[in-house]
Each structure stands twice: as structure tokens, then as C-alpha cells.
């Protein structure tokens, strides 16, 4: 009994404050959690919005795709819907390792899954002046409207950066980073495409099932 009393004598302040602070934090969190969530999607929206202007993103599905070497990754598929309510494209986030660190991209595909709309860099830690040029139009524009399929990195001089095809001319001095972008595309795009087709197919079946049912 004495011990308990002693304990409270010594520690009441800590106990009281920790409870109070706990409440404080929780309250702040409760207050702001909506904004925080909103901000997260907002950034995605903004980036994808730049790729698919005038479209609204809606979470379509969360799928698991298998990258090479059996690595599995959760991918959030988003559907871009125009004001009119038509589907105009698809976006998803993809990541892979670059020169220094992880590179994260948002990739947009067109609605028929024929071509690539483009990509934006979500986060990259590449050397300023070298690897961070993957944010620049030079590399990005080579992907725009390119047909979905495997891309091949080539050195400058071996290909034409203006020409839209599956050959991607790397940035000199940042070959590694450029190749990393290409690799991300190669790892994700076709798999995601497969998944989307699967899902859309399922949905259609479901709709027709519903109709039938």
C-alpha cells in the first residue's frame, strides 16, 4: 500500500501529463485526419491530373501483381473519369530502384490499354543534375503515346528521341536512372494491363450476369 502511494507521489505528474498529452494528440489527429487523407490523394490527383487533364480519379481496385523474382506488390488502380462520366484512362503507382534510391512514379495508360499516356515522378532521390533529369520532358515525352509493351533503353546516338517507339534514348550521364524508369515500365505496365483487362472482363461478366440474373 505504501509502495503504491509512493509511486503515485513520485509519478503522478507523468501519469497525468501523459494522459493529457495522449488526448491532445488524438484530438489533433481526429481533427485533421481528413485533411491529411485528402492531401495524400490530392497529390496523386494533381500529378495524374496533369497527365489526364480534366479527369477525376476514382479508386477502381487494389490488385496484387507479381514482379520478377516472385516479388509481390500491391497496386492501387485508379480509374480516370471525365466530367461526362466516361472512362478516359487508368493510373497507378509504380516503384523501382534507381541509381541512389527508390524511384516512385505514377503511370497513366489510355482507356483502351493500347498506349501509354505518360508518367510523373512521385519521389526520387537521384543526384541533382544527373538522375533527377528523369523528371524532365526529354525522357518523359519519349513515353507519351508509346505503345504498351516492352521498352528498350538505347544510348544516345543509337536512337531518335523524337520518334515515339519502344526504344527509349537514355539521358547521357544518367543512363542508370533512365534505365530504372524503363525497368519500372517493363516490370509493371504489361502486368497491370493484364489485371485491368481481367477485372474489366469480370465486371462486364458481372454486369451481364446481373442483367441475366
Amino acid at each position: 500500500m505504501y509502495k503504491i502511494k509512493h509511486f503515485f507521489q513520485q509519478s503522478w505528474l507523468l501519469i497525468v501529463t501523459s494522459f493529457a498529452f495522449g488526448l491532445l494528440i488524438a484530438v489533433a489527429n481526429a481533427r485533421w485526419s481528413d485533411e491529411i487523407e485528402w492531401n495524400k490523394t490530392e497529390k496523386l490527383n494533381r500529378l495524374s491530373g496533369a497527365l489526364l487533364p480534366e479527369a477525376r480519379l476514382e479508386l477502381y481496385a487494389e490488385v496484387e501483381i507479381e514482379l520478377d523474382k516472385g516479388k509481390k506488390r500491391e497496386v492501387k488502380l485508379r480509374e480516370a473519369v471525365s466530367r461526362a462520366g466516361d472512362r478516359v484512362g487508368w493510373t497507378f503507382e509504380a516503384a523501382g530502384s534507381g541509381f541512389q534510391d527508390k524511384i516512385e512514379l505514377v503511370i497513366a495508360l489510355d482507356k483502351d490499354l493500347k498506349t501509354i499516356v505518360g508518367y510523373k515522378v512521385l519521389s526520387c532521390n537521384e543526384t541533382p543534375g544527373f538522375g533527377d533529369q528523369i523528371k524532365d520532358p526529354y525522357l518523359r515525352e519519349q513515353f507519351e503515346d508509346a505503345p504498351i509493351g516492352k521498352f528498350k533503353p538505347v544510348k544516345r546516338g543509337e536512337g531518335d528521341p523524337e520518334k515515339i517507339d519502344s526504344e527509349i534514348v537514355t539521358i547521357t550521364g544518367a543512363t542508370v536512372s533512365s534505365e530504372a524508369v524503363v525497368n519500372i515500365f517493363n516490370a509493371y505496365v504489361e502486368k497491370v494491363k493484364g489485371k485491368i483487362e481481367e477485372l474489366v472482363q469480370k465486371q462486364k461478366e458481372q454486369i451481364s450476369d446481373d442483367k441475366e440474373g
Partner: protein
Amino acid sequence: MILASVLELWSSAWRAGLTMLGLGSGFALVLLVASEKLKVEVDPKIEQIHEVLPNLDCGACGFAGCGQYAKAVLQKPELIGKCVPGGPDTSEQIANILNLQVSDSGPQKRPIVHCRAHTSDRTYYAAYEGLPSCTAANALSNVQACKFGCLGFGDCTRACRFDALHVVDGLATVDYEKCTGCTACATTCPRHLIEMVPFAHENMLTVACNSRENGKSTRSMCKVGCIGCGLCAKQTDIFAVEDNLARLDFTKFEPTEQTETAMNKCPTGVILFRGATAPAPRQPGKKSTAAAEK
């Protein structure tokens, strides 16, 4: 309305509050038990010093944290003042804890350089081309003719942490305004020229020479050296000549008429005042202005 929103907040917050409550009291309990079970007896002074330190553990003192510094300072009080963030306040507090009031045993000691020869007063047989250090030069013979006088390479200057000592025209000269009496210079001088003297007055009289050569040799080596003639000792018994050198007993010094005369009678003018407001020494060979008037 308000109640409802409060209730809503509460409903989302109570879990966090409780978790932290649990965590907090858990740590409180553990630390309480630990602090009692694992108590180690230490010198209470260390604790006290530790208390007054800023407890930043910043390492500015050169120790691994305040605790170490506290321990070190207890053993070596000269380390007081190393705590940068604490500043002088802390130093003072530490001094109080260590009972380090400046002991009131007599007047503060200040250094006196027992030499008054500037470069032009001295005889040189050769140019010195060695290291610019008194200790190095003192190891060679005859860097200057006088073996006893100031070498002027400033080992003492470098030893003084308070910028209170400068070599002026080849002679170490104390700036008594800045000097703290730390004795660093006195222990550094390879020629043992600097003596820590209890300054009973603002200015102290001194025989500013250290030469034990006989009068003739001294004259041949230095224009202003003490030749051991004994005129001063005849005036008052606080002077005594020994080994061809007049010495002043500082503990007995009072500015009196006799000391004044002794000062003026000295043929080389080597008896002079040192201190914060000491008058400029007499030029060698010249009579003092006072004596000239008479």
C-alpha cells in the same frame, strides 16, 4: 451541440489517451524502481555540480557529457569555466560548491620581469637563427651576451592565456590591467626571470635585472644591468646585494624617501616601478628628473 462534439472527440481520443497513460505510468514505475534499486553512491558534490550545470551533455567542455565534467571539475578545479553554454554564472556556482573563494592571504601576486634591457641596450655577439623560442635559444650559449636577461622570443607571451604579456622591443612586458596572476608565465620562462610578487601597492619597486655577472662584465653586456655596486643597500636595508646583484625584499617594501633616493641613486637606473600605473623608467645614465631638480 458542444457536448456532442466533445463526446465525439472523446470517443476517438480515449484510446490514445489511455495508451499513453499506460506507457507513461509503465515507464514511471520502471524508472522509479530502477532509480531506487540501482542507486549508486556518489560524492554529493558531484551531484551538486551536476545540478548547476546546464545538463545539455553537449560536449563543449571536452568531456563526454555534464556528468563527466562534474566529476573532472571536482578533481581539477582549474577546469572551471570550460562549460560554454553555462557561462560565467555556472562557473561561479561551481566555485561556490567547491568552496573556491580566492583565498584572502595577502595581496594578489603579480608577475615582475627581472630585466629591463630592450634590444638596443643589449650586446649581441652573433645573430640568432634558430627557433623563435626562448627555451630553444636558452639552450644555446651566448645567443645574447647576457646569460641572465630576457631573450625576448616570447615563450611567456604564448603561455599567457589572457593576452597580458607582450614582448616589446625585445623585452617581455606585463600588461597589469589584463593580468590575472595565473603564474603561467613565471613557470614558463626558461631563464626564471619572472617572479610572482605580492603586489601590496598598485606599483611595486623592483630591481629589474637578473645578472650575476660582476660589474665589469655586466657593463660590457648590457647598458642597463645591475652592476652590484651596493648604493641602494646603503640607503635602506630592504635592498641587499648578493652575487653581484641587488635584490629587493618585496614583503617589506613601502614607498618611502629612502626607496626614492635609492631609486634615484642607482647608476644604471635599474631600480624602477612596475605596475598598472608605473611611471616610465629612467633612461640609463640620466639622473631622474627629481634628482636633476635638486
